[in-house]
């Protein structure tokens, strides 16, 4: 491949885009924002994990999942269970009728820690579970659906049903899950107080680092031969199948990858926000996550990240300025973007800003600018084909 050396990649156009994002997240935003706002950006970034997963799964492979909230929630709940157990020491819960179990269990007359909570005393198990639990569920759903060649709208509806089922399950089993309230009042991670400003800032940088890790994994998959097959599958599934590829296995893999990303996002969300509740699991948040991705541009990994950031920032901004009217503003924004720019912000960027860049590049350096990186030209191609 042409981008074999990392240094060379960094000065390529794609590399510069990643660098720009890194500079924005690591230098610009922390310098401009106070700790409270930075923490909010950190929260938005956790949705970017889901968006990156969706770009892979929906944009690249054409599998629209309306249930990513399920995986986000599972990752978040795994982390919340660990933190809640840490917060529920016998000393801290001495006034309960059964000290040493989470407070909501006590309220619901549960007197013993349920078996599935036990392993979450271990931090390493929790870290594993954050990724593994969403992946296992995604694997089961994937195998059940894709092996039977359920796809398209039917798959989207089923994922939505699963989001609904999981929400009902969590709310119904409140003695074991905290019900509608969720798991609240999380304070420390391995003795480290996660509520202080310093901790929130640290977690923000952890979140940025993890996001880049996920972006690079996604980019690696996208640029490999595997990524090409995904695109081929999206555009001509039968032709790929007749060429001898096992389409279902590819789909299961990419769906699991998206689930793992969402799970990591969920865990980081719990750490930064300090609680987890079923309101992140259901249908509405799941659809919102698709909207982030659609608005940012579903064919572009970075577009997904910017989409999550912008939509959430707009949501906070609108609701602070116009507490009674903000849902209309958000609705108008979505409708406007989808009607005017079906390929999201990334599509807009490619169409209008990139030609300007091309001219600048030509004037500045050698006439090499036409030699775009694989990813962006790939997504441009996708845009044409769609």
């Amino acid at each position, binding site marked *: 491949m042409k981008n074999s050396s990392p240094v060379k990649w960094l000065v390529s156009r794609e590399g510069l885009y990643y660098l720009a994002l890194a500079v924005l997240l690591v230098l610009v935003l922390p310098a401009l924002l106070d700790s*409270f706002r930075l923490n909010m950006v950190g929260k938005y970034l956790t949705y970017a994990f889901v968006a990156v997963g969706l770009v892979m799964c929906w944009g690249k492979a054409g599998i629209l999942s309306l249930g990513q909230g399920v995986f986000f929630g599972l990752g978040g709940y795994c982390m919340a269970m660990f933190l809640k157990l840490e917060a529920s020491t016998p000393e801290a819960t001495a006034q309960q009728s059964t000290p040493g179990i989470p407070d909501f269990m006590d309220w619901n007359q549960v007197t013993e820690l349920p078996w599935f909570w036990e392993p979450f005393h271990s931090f390493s198990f929790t870290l594993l579970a954050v990724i593994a639990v969403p992946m296992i569920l995604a694997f089961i759903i994937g195998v059940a659906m894709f092996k039977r060649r359920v796809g398209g709208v039917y798959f989207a509806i089923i994922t939505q049903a699963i989001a609904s089922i999981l929400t009902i399950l969590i*709310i119904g089993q409140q003695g074991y899950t905290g*019900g509608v309230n969720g798991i609240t009042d999380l304070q420390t991670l391995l003795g480290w107080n996660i509520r202080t400003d310093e901790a929130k800032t640290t977690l923000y940088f952890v979140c940025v680092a993890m996001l880049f890790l996920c972006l690079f994994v996604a980019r690696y998959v996208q640029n490999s031969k595997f990524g090409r097959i995904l695109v081929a599958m999206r555009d001509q599934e039968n032709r790929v199948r007749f060429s001898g590829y096992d389409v279902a296995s590819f789909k299961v893999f990419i769906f699991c990858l998206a689930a793992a990303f969402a799970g990591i996002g969920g865990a980081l969300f719990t750490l930064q*926000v300090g609680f987890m509740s079923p309101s992140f699991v259901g249908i509405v948040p799941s659809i919102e996550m698709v909207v982030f991705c659609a608005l940012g541009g579903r064919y572009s990994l970075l577009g997904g990240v910017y989409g999550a950031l912008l939509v959430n920032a707009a949501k906070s901004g609108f609701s602070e300025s116009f507490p009674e009217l903000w849902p209309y503003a958000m609705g108008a924004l979505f409708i406007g973007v989808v009607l005017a720019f079906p390929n999201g912000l990334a599509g807009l960027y490619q169409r209008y800003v990139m030609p300007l860049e091309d001219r600048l590049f030509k004037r500045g350096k050698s006439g090499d600018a036409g030699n775009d990186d694989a990813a962006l030209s790939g997504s441009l191609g996708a845009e044409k084909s769609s």
Partner: protein
Amino acid sequence: MKSQTYRTTSRPRRRLLAGLAALPALMALASPVFSAGPPTAEVNTTGLAVTDDTVQVGILHSITGTMAISEIGSVQAEKLAIKQINESGGVLGRQIEFVQEDGASDWPTFAEKTRKLLRQDNVAAIFGCWTSASRKAVLPVMEQFNGMLYYPTFYEGLEQSPNVIYTGQEATQQILAGIDWAVKEKGAKTFYLLGSDYIWPRTSNKIARKHIEKKGLKVVGEEYYPLGHTQFNSVINKIKLRKPDVIFASVVGGSNVAFYKQMKAAGVDFTKESPLLLTISVTEDEIRGIGGENVEGIYASMKYFQSLENPNNEEFVAAFKEAYGDDMVIGDVTQAAYLGPWLWKMAVEKAGSFDIDKIREASPGIEFKKAPEGYVRIHENHHLWSKTRIGRAQTNGQYEVVYETKELMEPDPFPEGYK
């Protein structure tokens, strides 16, 4: 939308009128009204948003999403109280300004907005939250940044935060007197407990069951339905089969509409009182959605009904209708929300300071004699002493008060054996 109108049109006019009315008094005193307050440095040592003539507070309720229909009444009541306090000279000589945020019926949003109100706006108090879930989400933030929340809803108890004043009832205040009344006045022997499936109905029914069984009476059924559930046929059949004397209902939100309509469709006439239906969740606000004709004859156990007859309440209802329109109804929680700003003002003035720690110390023992519900007092445990009342629903959507406890009921958020 109503609040918008009142803000843009009627408020300046009323201000002017109030100002004119105050003129003679002003001349007599010969001193400007708003310079009466002590210097800011003295009353605000922790960097709250207090200036020499203003103080900022936060209002945090859902004004969009599924909870908006319930919470808007609270917002209106809080704004009304703030306006009245301002007209009467403010708090420590300072006019109250409010920053309103939307919790959007979404618990994490509540937490985010609380953080914003406390960290960025440095508000001196927050009036807000409605559901237990939103309060639980907000609580850690309130405690971390040491804010003060005035929480208006009747709730399950099992909580007592140094950073919250609970102006609604905790579970025992609603339930014990209600059941006693049903047993004594109506001779009830068997009860069927029914609720939405979350912590408030479950805890309430636990308390109810203990109380019923302690009297040697019987609970013949206990059932829960998910929030938003709309199919109650099976439970209606069970009720018909087991013939309880009392259905004790804590169904919330939209489910109520389906529940009462289906009961009526199944031929249950509440006015016959067999079974008698006693609810702790249907206020005048909910009846607007259910329809008065569907609930005629049910009983509710609350601390406040719009129809209460006392001078405070008549004044309050008139002011509320003037501000928001004649077709407004005022439910239990709306009244409790109205208490919040007043109790805060009294605490600030008793403490002589806006500092949260001093307000916390000053709060227990504060008495509010102008409360629409009559008279309330803040308990050591940050809940209110208040009376329990039983109302009978009329077709016009109002309750007729048929019983009230003689004494104020003591709040007991951690009743023995329910912890």
